[in-house]
C-alpha cells in the first residue's frame, strides 16, 4: 500500500483516500467541523488546514487526495497558526452561550476553542445577532446564532435522509439555515442532525434542558423500535433514562438512528404504568404479594394441568435468554404450543434503516424455537380455548390481548392466565398471576436483528435487584459518590426481574435442575444447544454484535 508521512510518521492509505481519511484510519484526528466520514466533502470550515511540503499554500486535508510520498505536517507553526486563525474567526460571531446550551460538554467548538483558541477575543464590535429558539421541525430547536454554517445538516438531509429539506439562505454574516418556505423539517431521521451538528445550533427538543451531558452515565445497548436493532447508547441520570443516541456500527446503522426509535422506545421504562412487584388475583382483584408467594402459586397451579391444556406465548420483545428459558419450562411441562406474535406495520419500511417488523428479536425468537403465530395457529388456539381444551395461557412480555382482541371474550373460558409484563396493558388486566418483567434497559441479554446479527443489551437502569456498583453497570460521577441520603440517588427503582430469572425460579420449583446465576449462563446453554448460536459468547458478541454462522438471514415476513 502507498504511504504518506504524517507528522514524521509513515502511514498507509488506500488510493483515493483524502489526507484526513488516511489519518483517521491511522488513528490520528485532524481537527475538523464540516467533514463527516459519511457525508460528501464540503470544505467550508477550513479547520482541517495542514501543511504539505512542496505545496505553495496550506491545503484542506478533507479535500486533498493523499499521494505516494506526500509529507504532511498537522502541527507545524504555519498549520497551527492557520487553525488558530480559523478558530478566532468562528468565534467572532458565536454567542458563547455555553451555560444555556445543551451541546456544552460534547461540543466540537468548545473542544477546539480550548485546544486552539486564544482564550480572549480581539473583536470589539457588536456581534451579529440572529434568531434563537426557532422550531425547525417537530423535534428540533434551531439557534441561528450558534450555527457555524458547516452545512453538515444540509448534506445529511440531501444525502442520507434524501428529503432535501434544508438550505442556506442570505449572504455574508447573515447566512442562516432554513427549510423551504412553509415546509417543516420532518423526515423520519431529523434528529441525527443534532448529533452531527458540531455545535449546539440544532438540539433535540425532547432532551432540551433535561440534563447536562456530564451528569449522565451511558450504556451500550440496542434500540427496540424495529428489527434493525440500531446500536445505541442509553443516557441515564438518577436512574432515569433521559435520551438515546446512536452508536456507530457500520454493519447495522452506521452513525444514525430514526426519530421514532430515539423518542418512543424508552419512556415506558420510567413511566407510572410500570408493574412494581408481583401480583396474584385474589377475590377478583390483583393483589401485591411477595416474590416467593407468586412463584409458588405459579408453580403449584401449573403442576395441575397437562401439557396439552396449556399454551405458551413468548415474545419478540423478550431476549433470546428469556425465550430460551420459556421453552425449557414448556418442555418441562410437556407443552407443545409455544408461540410468539409478530408485530408488522405494513409499509412502514425504507431503504435507510426502518423495518416493517417492529420488534427487536423476531428472528431470535424463531431461532430459539418459538412458532410465529399465523392465521391457522391463531384460529386453532381460539378454537381450543373455546372448546375448553386449552385451560391455561402463559404470556411473556407482549400485549397479546391487545393484539388479538378475540381473546378478551375467550378469557372467561381460561382457568389460569400467567403474564410477565413490564407495563400495565390490556393483557395484564386479565392476568391471574402477574410478574413484573425487567425492561430491555434493566437486564443483560441478546437480540437477533433482521440480518441475523446477534447483539447485546446491557442494564442501564437499576431495578431493586440490581446495584450499579456491584453489578458492573456504568456509573456517572453522581452514582459513584452518592449516598442513600442524597436526593439525586433516590430515583425510582422498580421491583422487577428479567423473565428468564422468573422462569428459572418456577422451573426449579417444578424440579428442573438448573443453575443460572446470570444471563450469560443462559446464553452459554443456548450456544451449546442451538446450532446457529454455536461457538458464540458474550465476549465475542461484545459491542458490535456478530453475525450468526453460515446463514445470510434476510427478513422473512
Amino acid at each position, binding site marked *: 500500500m502507498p504511504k504518506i508521512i504524517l507528522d514524521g510518521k509513515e502511514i498507509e492509505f488506500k488510493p483515493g483516500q483524502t489526507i484526513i481519511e488516511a489519518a483517521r484510519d491511522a488513528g490520528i484526528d485532524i481537527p475538523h467541523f464540516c467533514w463527516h466520514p459519511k457525508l460528501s466533502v464540503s470544505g467550508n470550515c477550513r479547520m482541517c488546514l495542514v501543511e504539505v511540503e512542496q505545496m505553495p499554500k496550506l491545503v484542506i486535508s478533507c479535500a486533498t487526495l493523499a499521494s505516494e510520498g506526500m509529507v504532511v505536517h498537522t502541527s507545524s507553526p504555519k498549520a497551527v497558526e492557520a487553525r488558530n486563525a480559523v478558530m478566532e474567526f468562528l468565534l467572532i460571531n458565536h454567542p458563547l452561550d*455555553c*451555560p*444555556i446550551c445543551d451541546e*456544552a460538554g460534547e461540543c466540537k467548538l468548545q473542544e477546539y476553542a480550548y485546544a486552539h483558541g486564544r482564550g480572549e477575543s480581539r473583536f470589539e464590535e457588536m456581534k451579529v445577532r440572529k434568531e*434563537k*429558539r426557532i422550531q425547525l421541525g417537530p423535534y428540533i430547536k434551531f439557534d441561528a446564532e450558534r450555527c457555524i454554517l458547516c452545512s453538515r445538516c444540509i448534506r445529511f438531509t440531501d444525502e442520507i435522509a434524501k428529503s432535501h429539506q434544508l438550505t442556506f439562505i442570505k449572504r455574508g454574516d447573515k447566512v442562516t439555515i432554513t427549510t423551504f418556505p412553509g415546509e417543516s423539517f420532518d423526515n423520519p431521521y431529523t434528529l441525527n442532525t443534532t448529533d452531527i451538528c458540531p455545535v449546539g445550533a440544532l438540539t433535540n427538543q425532547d432532551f*432540551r*434542558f*433535561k440534563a*447536562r451531558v*456530564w*451528569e449522565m452515565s451511558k450504556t451500550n445497548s440496542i434500540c427496540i423500535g424495529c428489527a434493525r436493532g440500531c446500536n445505541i447508547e442509553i443516557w441515564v441520570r438518577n436512574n432515569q433514562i433521559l435520551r438515546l443516541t446512536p452508536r456507530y456500527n457500520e454493519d447495522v446503522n452506521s452513525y444514525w438512528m430514526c426519530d421514532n426509535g430515539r423518542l418512543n422506545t424508552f419512556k415506558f421504562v420510567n413511566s407510572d404504568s410500570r408493574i412494581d412487584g408481583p401480583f396474584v388475583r385474589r377475590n377478583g382483584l390483583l393483589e401485591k404479594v411477595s416474590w416467593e408467594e407468586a412463584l409458588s402459586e405459579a408453580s403449584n397451579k401449573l403442576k395441575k394441568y397437562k401439557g396439552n391444556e396449556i399454551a405458551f406465548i413468548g415474545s419478540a420483545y423478550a431476549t433470546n435468554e428469556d425465550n430460551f428459558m420459556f421453552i425449557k419450562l414448556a418442555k418441562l411441562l410437556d407443552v407443545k404450543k409455544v408461540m410468539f406474535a409478530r408485530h408488522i406495520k405494513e409499509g412502514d419500511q425504507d431503504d435507510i434503516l426502518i423495518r416493517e417488523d417492529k420488534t427487536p428479536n423476531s428472528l431470535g425468537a424463531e431461532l430459539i424455537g418459538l412458532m410465529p403465530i399465523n392465521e391457522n395457529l391463531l384460529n386453532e388456539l381460539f378454537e381450543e380455548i373455546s372448546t375448553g381444551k386449552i385451560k391455561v395461557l402463559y404470556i411473556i412480555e407482549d400485549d397479546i390481548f391487545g393484539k388479538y382482541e378475540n381473546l378478551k371474550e375467550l378469557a372467561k373460558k381460561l382457568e389460569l392466565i400467567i403474564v410477565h409484563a413490564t407495563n400495565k396493558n390490556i393483557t395484564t388486566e386479565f392476568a391471574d398471576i402477574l410478574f413484573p418483567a425487567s425492561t430491555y434497559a434493566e437486564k443483560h441479554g441478546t437480540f437477533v436483528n433482521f440480518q441475523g446479527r446477534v447483539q447485546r443489551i446491557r442494564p442501564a437502569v437499576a431495578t431493586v435487584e440490581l446495584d450499579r456498583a456491584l453489578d458492573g453497570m456504568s456509573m456517572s*460521577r*453522581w452514582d459513584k*459518590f*452518592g449516598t442513600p*441520603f*442524597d*436526593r*439525586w440517588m433516590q430515583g425510582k427503582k422498580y421491583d422487577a426481574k428479567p423473565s428468564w430469572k422468573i422462569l428459572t425460579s418456577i422451573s426449579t420449583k417444578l424440579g428442573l435442575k438448573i443453575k443460572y446465576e446470570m444471563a450469560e449462563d443462559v446464553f452459554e446453554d443456548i450456544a451449546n444447544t442451538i446450532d446457529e448460536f454455536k461457538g458464540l459468547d458474550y465476549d465475542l458478541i461484545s459491542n458490535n454484535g456478530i453475525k450468526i454462522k453460515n446463514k445470510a438471514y434476510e427478513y422473512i415476513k
Partner: protein
Amino acid sequence: MVAKKRKKNLNFFERIYIVEIIKGMILTLKNMFRPKFTMEYPEVKFEPPASYRGRPVLVLDENGVERCVACGLCSRVCPALAIEVQAAETEYEKERYPEKFEINMLRCIFCGFCEEVCPEEAIVMSKDYELVYTNREDAIYGKDKLLVPIEQLRDRIEFLRKFK
C-alpha cells in the same frame, strides 16, 4: 524510671514562684483594661466583612427573577457534591432557569468554588453562618431558602468584582 532532666534549670527567684505569680497578675490586670472582643452571642451578632464565606445563596435580581440559568457548573465544580440543579425552559431571554436548585448544607464545605465558577454571578457566598437543623432532610436547602434579594448581597458582589 529515669528522672527527666528539666529543659531549663530554674534560678532561685523562679523557684520560689512569688515573682512569677506577680508577673502573671500584672498581665491579667493589663488585659482587664483592654478593649473587649468577646460577643454575647446570640444577643449580639457578628457582622462579617465582605470577604467572609458564609452559606452560598442565589441572587434574586432587581426584576425579581433569579439570575441562575441552571447551567450546572457550580454543581459540577462542587468538590462536596452539595448542589443539585434541574433546568427548565423559561420565556425570559435567558432561556433556562433552575426549576429545582438544592444545596445540601451537610455536604457544603464553604469553599466558594460555586461562586467562583458561576458565569452569571448568580450564586454568591453570603454572610449567613447560622445554620441549624435537626435532621438530614432539613439540611437540604431549596430555592425558597436560597434566593436572596440582590440588595442584601451588594457588598459581596462588589468584593467579587474587585478581587475575583
